[in-house]
């Protein structure tokens, strides 16, 4: 089987710094990682390949430096990597991103074989929208299985797939058909450590680099800023709360007295809590 997985290189969000004057993200020296949610999807893709045979193609859209993320994905054991990079993609929102990626997936299919499954992570940690997966599915007319916790079975002869999908209050068991698009939930499988062989192969691998034209994208009006119906009009920092926290003085007090004082302070500020907390009202 042929599996395509879309990944994204993201800033390591724990280390994001915002310029205090210009309110822009200071990317200088911020380390980048593969979007953590994508690693669960990659692991699932590799497991399926190992069980059923075939190949895993990793695809990303991004600046030239996103090649690092692809190379990293190869060290986990992916078979090939495709970088879609072009200045025409700059400023893409989720609709424009799903357009470019779906066109590239079509091209991947023509070049390396039609994919049976397209994987994405459930969302990225920088955009956090969870919109690109469903967008790709819709544009490629693929069946959409989001928030999948587990792939229960795949029958390549009858092209059937059964999955466990997270939903409100429980798990749905769904039966669907290939080809489909799956967004993977986190934490279902331990992420493998790539072998030394994989690392050596990754270091030697040629990464396929496609411009918009290489990927067969003719309609540039659907890409980047031009192809994005949403427009960011204003970026600003959250306002600080006007009042500082009231500090409870801890000098020379027992923990018991401090605790009583805190409860009194809570009830002074929110008398209604008297009925919320299971008190009898008598202090």
């Amino acid at each position, binding site marked *: 089987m042929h599996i395509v997985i879309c990944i994204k290189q993201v800033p390591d969000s724990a280390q994001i710094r915002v310029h205090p004057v210009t309110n822009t*993200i200071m990317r200088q020296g911020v380390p980048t990682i593969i979007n953590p949610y994508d690693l669960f999807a990659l692991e699932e893709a590799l497991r399926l390949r190992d069980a059923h045979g075939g190949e895993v193609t990793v695809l990303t859209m991004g600046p030239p430096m996103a090649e690092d993320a692809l190379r990293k994905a190869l060290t986990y054991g992916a078979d090939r990597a495709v970088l879609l990079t072009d200045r025409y993609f700059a400023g893409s929102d989720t609709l424009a991103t799903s357009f470019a990626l779906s066109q590239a997936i079509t091209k991947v299919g023509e070049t390396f074989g039609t994919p049976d499954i397209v994987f994405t992570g459930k969302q990225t940690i920088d955009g956090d929208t969870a919109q690109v997966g*469903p967008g790709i599915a819709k544009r490629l007319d693929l069946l959409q299985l989001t928030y999948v916790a587990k792939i229960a079975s795949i029958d390549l002869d009858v092209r059937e797939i059964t999955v466990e999908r997270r939903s409100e209050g429980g798990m749905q*068991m769904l039966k669907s058909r290939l080809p489909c698009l799956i967004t993977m939930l986190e934490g279902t499988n331990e992420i493998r450590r790539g072998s030394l062989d994989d690392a050596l192969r990754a270091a030697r691998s040629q990464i396929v680099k496609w411009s918009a034209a290489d990927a067969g994208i003719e309609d540039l009006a659907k890409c980047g800023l031009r192809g*994005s119906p949403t427009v960011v009009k204003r970026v600003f920092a959250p306002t600080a709360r006007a009042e*500082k926290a009231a500090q409870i003085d801890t000098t020379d007090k027992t923990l018991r007295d401090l605790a009583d004082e805190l409860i009194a302070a809570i009830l002074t500020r929110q008398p209604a809590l008297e009925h919320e*907390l*299971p008190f009898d009202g008598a*202090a």
Partner: protein
Amino acid sequence: MSTANRETPPPAAGRAGMKKELPEHFKDYRHVWVFIELERGQVHPVSFELLGEGRKLADKLGVELAGVVLGPPGEATWHAVAEAFAYGADLAYIIEDPLLAHYRNEPFTRAMTDLLNTYKPEILLLGATILGRDLAGSTATTLLTGLTADCTELDVDADGSLAATRPTFGGSLLCTIYTINYRPQMATVRPRVMAMPQRVDKPVGRVIQHKLAMAEEEVVTKILGFLPDSQSAKANLAYANVVVAGGLGLGAVENLQLVRNLASAIGAEYGCSRPLVQKGWMPADRQIGQTGKTIRPKLYIAAGISGAIQHRVGVEGADLIVAINTDPNAPIFDFVHLGIVTDAIRFLPALTEAFTRRLSPHNRDKLAS
């Protein structure tokens, strides 16, 4: 490859070209819609929170507020319609069909896009839930319109455009996003970000019934079964009135028991900050913050949590926030109401004990059982 036909694309609307030129065929899109999320007979409360928000937008625009109810034939679906009226909808669009008994992407996307193309609202709001995100992404892509996720603030500007504000980069920045030349303008909002509006009894409203043009044979994906989460293990953080949470300051996984003890002593839900989930100390459904749950309790007690921006985003709706932390310079003290600079590991047992002393014997027994 399915891409819907569009007239000539509008002129580039980059940051430089903010000029609004709504194409002619979008000019008759009017009114504000809220998707009423119905799953297994229950309406998700985020739907009511959005009706409260949608009401404000509709009033500013001088238009009507509608609820969209998709469900199986029967009582639960009509109950959802009545609830939509109770929380402020002027009218409801309803599609009753057996295909809509349980959520599946194909029939729900078909139902929603069909309603939107037929009745043409200018704004559609959905909850940023599992169901809402699945449906919103497919719907917006089908209509090739803009969709803004996880909004924390919604407003309309002078020319009637929806201004959707959302956190970006884990909450370090906020950005205001517009869908200039496309309709409907779509946005999702996470549960508990908006306040719950007042419910009105004996509501009335107009109902517009629509048919789903789809047969079961056309739906590829079939539901084989449903495994409910065990009730005991399930966190109900989002709608809890009192929440206690622990962070890295607790130092060791076994100290989370101190948080759980306090929570059970006062009948609260418990949770944690992101690093604890990353360490595997607590399951992901107990994570509070931008990438976890947004909470809106009457009381929130944060123990040993430093208060990274992404945590702040998820707790700011709490009526009263109390922080316990040894570091007087921890960022959490910038946005809480009450602070104690002390070691949570030593203080939590004392606080639990102090609360327990105040509990009525009756409640003590009730909580212990």
